[in-house]
Structure formats: C-alpha cells, structure tokens
C-alpha cells in the first residue's frame, strides 16, 4: 500500500539530513552556488535534504537567497 501525499509531507524520509546548525554554517555558500547557476544540492545534499524537511530553515534559505540577489553587491563606501 502506498501512503498518501500528506503522510509524505508529515513524515519526510531524508536520511542525509544535515540538521539546522550544520546547514546554517554553510547556508551562505549554498545560496551563492545557486545564484551563480550551480546546483548546490549536488555538492551539499545534506543541506538540500534539510531545507526540504525543515520549514524554519527553508524560510531562512529563501530569505537569504532573495537578500543576496537583491542586496548582495552593496559596497561599504559608495563611490
């Protein structure tokens, strides 16, 4: 018997999950790799799995991705 989609959402099965703290440690490089056209899920599968399972870290990831895209080139001393 296959389980319904709601069960999959409630009980994601990510065996490579890096966890919140370890994902936070490298979230900046994960985002930069994505913004430069790469696929960070290839090189950092533990982070990708965690983001898919942890709503809180997924929000941080989305916010960081947006912020880096919008405000990433700011300089300290505008010319």
């Amino acid at each position, binding site marked *: *018997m*296959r*389980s*319904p*989609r*709601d*069960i*999959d959402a*409630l*009980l*994601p*099965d*990510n*065996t*490579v*999950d*890096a*966890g*919140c*703290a*370890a*994902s*936070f*440690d*490298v*979230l*900046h*490089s*994960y*985002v*930069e790799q994505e913004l430069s056209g790469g696929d960070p*899920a290839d*090189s*950092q*599968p*533990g*982070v*990708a*799995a965690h983001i*898919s*399972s*942890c*709503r*809180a*870290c997924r*929000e*941080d990831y*989305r*916010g*960081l991705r*947006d*912020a*880096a895209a919008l*405000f*990433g*080139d*700011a*300089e*300290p*001393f505008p010319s």
Partner: protein
Amino acid sequence: MPIEYRAVADTARSGAAATDTTSQLWLDGLRASGREHDQCVAALHALLLRVARYEVSRRAESLQLRGPELEDVAQQASDDALMAIRSKIAGFRGDSRFTTWAYKFVMFEVSTKMGRHFWRHRHASMDADSWERLPDRGAAAPDQRTEHREIFEALRRAIDQDLTPLQQRVFVAVALNEVPMDAVARELGSNRNSVYKVLFDARRKLRESLRTAGYERPTQSSGSAA
C-alpha cells in the same frame, strides 16, 4: 537511540577561498580603526536594517505582524546581527560574498525575533489533540478515502503510543499545528536545532510504526541516499 545525522563533510569547505574585491573592502573597513571603521560599521548596519525590513515584510503575512511590530523586529534583528557579525568575522572564510555571509545572521535573528512574537498573535496549541484532524487532512479522491483513513488512524495510534511526551508535543506543534520551530524552541526553553532533532526522531519513529503496521512508504526521490 541517538539522532543519526549524517556528518556534513559534504557541506564543509576546508580552506579559505579567494575573497572578491567588494568583500575585501568590507573586511578592511571592519578591521580598520578610527573613522574608516566607524563609517564601515554604520554602512553595514544600514544595510542589515534594509535587509531585515525586507525580510520581515516578506514573512509578515504568515505571522500576522504589522507596522510598528515589523519595524521593531527589523531594528532588533539588524542590531543583533551586527553584533554577531563583528564577533564572528574571523570565521568568514571567503566562500561567498561577505554580504551573503552577513545577511545569514539577519535571517537567523529575524526568525528568532518572530518566534518570540508568534505567541502574541496566534493561539495555536502545542498540546491539544490536534491529530483528531488528521483524517480530514488526508481526505482526497473518493476512492482513496478508506485507504487514507486507515493510514491516518495508524498514524494517530503511533503518535499516541510510540512517541515520548516531548516528541508528541513537538510533532503536534510543528508538523500538525504549523507552529514555527523558533516559537516552539522559545516555549520549551530550547533552540531550533534541538527541537528539530526531536522532530526528526519522532518522524523516524512514526515511519517505522507505519511500516510495522504494513504501510510501506513510496520510493523516495533522489537526494535521500543512505
């Protein structure tokens, strides 16, 4: 049984990367002294506040915050992010732009502050028997309703019988009632990472319980290798 997180060797970079020109300007300014340092700190704080305002606005609807509260969260988040950045700057390895690394602390602080504000506006429970609603969540196509009901009944039993009280509390709050992890952490006097470990363990127990009860999970997609 302890949580079995896979080591994150795949996520770590061992050495420092070359720093881009703009990032080096930030680093030089923050490490300078006198007026140059002060100007750089002021510029960074202004930038962090801008990012924080953008981020709280992005999240405002889901947390029902408005006006002064949003600005309060943004101000506090940017202040605390600046402190964190200044204390951790030696840990910047150049594996991203400096700003991306710095904005990460804004996201962390915004999440923490919004978790604190959550309980002021929402009355979601951490303890109610919310799994009573599970069968409704599973209602799908008519020909699948019986199957869904059986699985959700098995899940309800597993939550009730197989989880510890803390696992029940965290699973109900986060997975069923959609309480933010940081709000749960605050309620429990814990932190996000610890709460997630409890959730992770609860999910694993529940999957095993369903498997034992004869409900096999579908084949997982890529990215979840052993």
